[in-house]
């Protein structure tokens, strides 16, 4: 089940981001991103887990540039979410060899449930943000900056805990 979902998520992320670029005539960029998707599939087959990280960075950059180029946000957003799912499943797929057959179904189900929860929340928030595209006012920016600083400080504190430094 994991392998099927992994392949589907890689294909969907490549197709969605490519579609976004191809829709506005950036064919070469779209082809390049499609090639990244193909290499990612090959990497899954060959066991090159490191490529998932490269692909994730490339799709994130593609989404950022897509926003700068005013491409339709829906394709970029869904493509990035699919890429994130593929990145997660690549990591989980690598761990499958350590799971015994009798535990496999249960662990896959639990993982997919958590991923489903993520997808549900992410798509809900994403849909909300796309539909209600609010203009960033000064108050919003100030709030988000404060949120960023607070989040960063929490994260640094968390990372400095000895048990989390592994």
């Amino acid at each position, binding site marked *: 089940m994991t392998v099927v979902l992994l392949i589907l998520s890689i294909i969907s992320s490549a197709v969605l981001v490519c579609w976004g670029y191809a829709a506005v005539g950036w064919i070469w960029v779209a082809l390049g991103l499609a090639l990244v998707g193909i290499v990612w599939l090959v990497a899954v087959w060959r066991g090159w887990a490191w490529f998932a*990280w490269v692909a*994730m960075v490339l799709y*994130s950059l593609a*989404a*950022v540039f897509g*926003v700068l180029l005013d491409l339709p*946000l829906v394709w*970029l*957003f869904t493509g*990035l*979410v699919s890429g*994130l799912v593929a990145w*997660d499943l690549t*990591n*989980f797929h690598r*761990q499958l060899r*350590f*799971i*015994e057959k009798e*535990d496999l179904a*249960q*662990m896959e189900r*639990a*993982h997919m*449930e*958590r*991923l489903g*929860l*993520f997808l549900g*929340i*992410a798509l809900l*928030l*994403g849909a909300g*943000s*796309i539909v209600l*595209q*609010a*203009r*960033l006012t000064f108050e919003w*920016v100030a709030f*988000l*900056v404060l949120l*960023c600083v607070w*989040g*960063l400080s929490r*994260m640094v504190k*968390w*990372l400095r805990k000895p*048990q*989390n*430094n*592994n």
Partner: protein
Amino acid sequence: MRRTIFLGILVYLLLLTGLVLVRSPFIALALPLAVYLFLGLAFHPPEVKLEITRTLSQERVAPERPVTVTITVRNLGGALEHAFLEDQLSPALTVHDGKPRRLVTLPQGGSLTWEYTVSGPRGYHTFRGVNVTISEHLGLSQRVEHIPVTGQLFILPPVVRLRRVYIRPRQTLVYSGTIPARRGGPGVEFFGVRAYHPGDSRHRINWHASARHMDELYSNEFEQERVADVGVILDARIRTNVYKNRSIFEHSVMASAALMDAFLNEGNRVGLLLYGQYLQWTIPGYGKMQRERLLQTLARATTGDSLVFSDLAYIPTQLFPTNSQLVLVSPLHPDDMDILVRLRLREYHVMVISPDPISFEMQALPDDPALDMARRVLQMERDLLLTQVQRAGIQVVNWDVTRPIDQVLYAALGRPPVSLRFIPRRQM
């Protein structure tokens, strides 16, 4: 952890880009990543409270024999979504069936048992503990703990049973054994004739000798058989044992194990000196306990080099009683000749068991006329060395390692050597 940092960087880059450019779509793009990160951190795994035990089907085995390792884990803390358990094995051990690593879900109070099979070469192998990595399903927040669960596995050298190893040291101990003691008394072998003492059995009277002397009776005397002190010296120097990447040391260990077993079975007191990087002395003793001690020492034995012990000059002779039997197991180096002669001059009865490094090396080399010529030259040099050692009154067994040790030792030591068959009566 790397995944958390990676996602954190992506989220903050998107947020900051959005804030700098004052464009909300960047913040919308950061949302799914932030949700993923939040879910990972929200389900942060609880404190690890695991009780782990490891049992081995056997703690002392022969080389390459399978040993089943059973790991039992009990979760005394909260439920663990992903628990990656990795048993820390000695790198020399090879896993056959099963795996020493396992990824499981452990509910609160749940337990898990799994098995795997290992085998390995001779040695003392320790199990250090179990590394536990706990994470939630997305693998973002982790806790890593090392749970010490110690264990040990002795892979002992193979002990080849020898039928009889004939030794005849000058000095024997007080207990009866199998070594002729050069003293008259109860025994099997004829030793001499002496005047009849009151109390001698009529069966022991030598009627032929008595018939020649009208007034006196003579009794036969038999040679007492006793146990002796045997010191085995195992040469563990790299210069004599390691040839390029191959080591003949395993053969030396096997020969030592076989000889020590044979000597102990005959009731002798046996000690072992490992002479290599340092000196390791196992004090002499008798019986099964001593056999176990010696085998465990041999299991741990490795080759080593040191400037001090590069030749045999520093064999601590004070450890061995004078006139006792010394058995040196060594491929021999030409420089060792003088030391062996010196040992002989100190009145030790010295025996050298020498695994043949030339036959050992030739096993790994292709058939080549040039190599054959080199082999013949080396063989002549070695034969010359062994002849010189023999001429010094040292018993030498050249072991062609392509032949089984028991056959070689039985042929060489199964009966007393000619030089020892007729030894004059000891001065009383």
